[in-house]
């Protein structure tokens, strides 16, 4: 608890421990969590994502056939329909589809995290600087942004991967390159309006340096919409990864990437439907989960008078 200063000689102002200093954040977080949990669909989405993370981490232990999950084949057991020993059946190489789906959970989660982190590092900062400073910095940054935005994201990503060589790392890189401009534009728009706010002007009057104003005033207050947007975008990123892998431009066999698995099962889809359908379902559910969470977050970060 706080104790007042006891004078110069050895007296100190202990104005609250770590908990007290962040009490405001705690209260706000508790409140936000409560609001979020009112949205049942968002909660379901969150649960699913958490479940997928657990599955991804624990893959070697929970997958019934971990080696096959990683790629080992068992040509004796090709094309087996879903059964007790293979709940999702086996694929054209005899591999247990369930195990592969389990191992495959790692890829979208890791890649989307990496991509999101990179995009969040680059995009908002550029946008904040462009919006706050205006002038030629704004022009230069926004024109570069416009150039990138002019290309259809998927096509640009495909082109990059084709040039650099198709593998997951280049795919992640390509997606980062195509995604960051959206955040620059989003944050730049917010920065332009935020720089007129009285608290920014007060900071200028107080002599706070520009860089600090951007970091401590502009960016934190642009936070909300960025978080909502990235959560919704992660779903699209996952789809892109799956889609490009489906086309052969991402993961290479025998990687258990869901999109790749779908493409491997496409030619058998009429008879041995389980080879494509289960990974496809996994993609669908994960993307849906992120979208639901994104919607839930929007309600939290865009408060209205609720019941």
């Amino acid at each position: 608890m706080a104790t007042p200063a006891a004078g110069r000689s050895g007296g100190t102002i202990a104005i609250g421990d770590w908990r007290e200093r962040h009490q405001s954040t705690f209260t706000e977080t508790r409140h936000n969590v409560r609001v979020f949990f009112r949205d049942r669909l968002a909660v379901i989405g969150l649960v699913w994502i958490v479940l997928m993370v657990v599955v991804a981490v624990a893959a070697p232990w929970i997958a019934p056939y971990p080696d096959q999950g990683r790629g080992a084949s068992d040509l004796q057991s090709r094309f087996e329909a879903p059964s007790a020993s293979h709940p999702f059946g086996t694929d054209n190489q005899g591999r247990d589809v369930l195990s592969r789906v389990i191992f495959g959970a790692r890829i979208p989660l890791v890649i989307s995290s990496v991509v999101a982190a990179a995009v969040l590092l680059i995009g908002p900062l550029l946008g904040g600087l462009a919006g706050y400073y205006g002038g030629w910095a704004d022009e230069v940054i926004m024109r570069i942004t416009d150039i990138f935005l002019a290309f259809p994201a998927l096509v640009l990503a495909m082109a990059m991967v084709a040039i650099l060589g198709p593998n997951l790392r280049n795919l992640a890189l390509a997606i980062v390159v195509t995604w960051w401009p959206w955040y620059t534009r989003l944050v730049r728009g917010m920065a332009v309006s935020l720089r007129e706010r009285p608290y920014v002007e007060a900071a200028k009057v107080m002599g706070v340096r520009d860089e600090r104003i951007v970091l401590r005033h502009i960016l934190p207050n642009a936070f909300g919409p960025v978080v909502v947007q990235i959560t919704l975008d992660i779903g699209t990123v996952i789809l892109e990864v799956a889609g490009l892998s489906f086309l052969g431009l991402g993961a290479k066999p025998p990687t258990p990437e869901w999109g790749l698995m779908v493409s491997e099962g496409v030619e058998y889809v009429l008879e041995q439907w389980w080879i494509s359908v289960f990974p496809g379902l996994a993609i669908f559910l994960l993307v849906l989960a992120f979208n639901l969470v994104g919607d839930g977050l929007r309600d939290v970060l865009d408060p209205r008078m609720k019941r």
Partner: protein
Amino acid sequence: MPDLLEIKDLTLQFNSLRGTVKALDGVNLTVREREIIGLVGESGCGKTITGLSVLGLLPRPQTEVTGGQILFRGDDLLALGDRAVEDIRGRLVAMVFQDPLASLNPVFTIGNQISRVVRVNKGLSHAEAREATRQALASAGLRPDDELLDSYPHQLSGGMRQRACMAMALSCDAPLLIADEPTTALDVTIQAQMLRLLLDLRDDLGIAQVLITHNVGVAAQTCDRVAVMYAGTVVEQGLTAEVLKHPHHPYTMALYDCLPQGKKASELHTIPGSVPDLIDPPDGCRFHPRCVHAMEVCETVKPEPTRLTEEHWVACHWAEQQPGAGEGVPA
């Protein structure tokens, strides 16, 4: 003169994330024909909510009326169905709000918006409605030429926009107008013009008005009677001169002492404490924690309005016991 509007013991609460806000705790107010009554108070006292509740404009289902009646010419508006209330809006009771820019639709012309109101409420043809629009604009002190009717809200100045909102409110000849802080967003000289307009509406067109304001001066200069609100209830009501020059409620007296008129900053009085949180309001009289005259009974028993003179009512245990002293207006 029969009462045009009588709000009897209106009690209302609404549900928010943090809890139930007991916004109104027994509001009593009467409005007579052809008079202007001021509803005066600071933010959070419930004056706007009272105004909105007359027209049923409070958000549902969060808002719950838990008691009382709103009688318009004898009919309880709270007992009416949605259709009936819609019918009353505009036709019998009109409302004007604080921010004219927010009250006007930016994509329709002034003429269009007002004509629409007239057509909906009175079933007139387009041509008749346009004529009625011109008349309404003229009553609001605007020159009703085609240029005005065809202009958009953003093309007008603040004062003109507020007059346009007034015109919309007047367009259907409603006998009662509720004006919620109509001049707060206006410059002083424009405000003066607007107040003059309100007085003219009373004198020339006989329109009764409830003027909701936090500005004591506005109330003093325009209102025939005044009701002072604090934390969801009317604490004092009566003829303007009586209430402002001879206040009996400690809050009214304290409020008056806070006014900077004619005092040096060092001479200003302040009211200790702060406005209560209406989720957990004080027991008894809601003003008692801040009241210099608080007695023991004030902590537990809510004071009922008692009559001091023919027109002057006060809801205060202490005031009931006083022979009638109140500093009121500085010389």
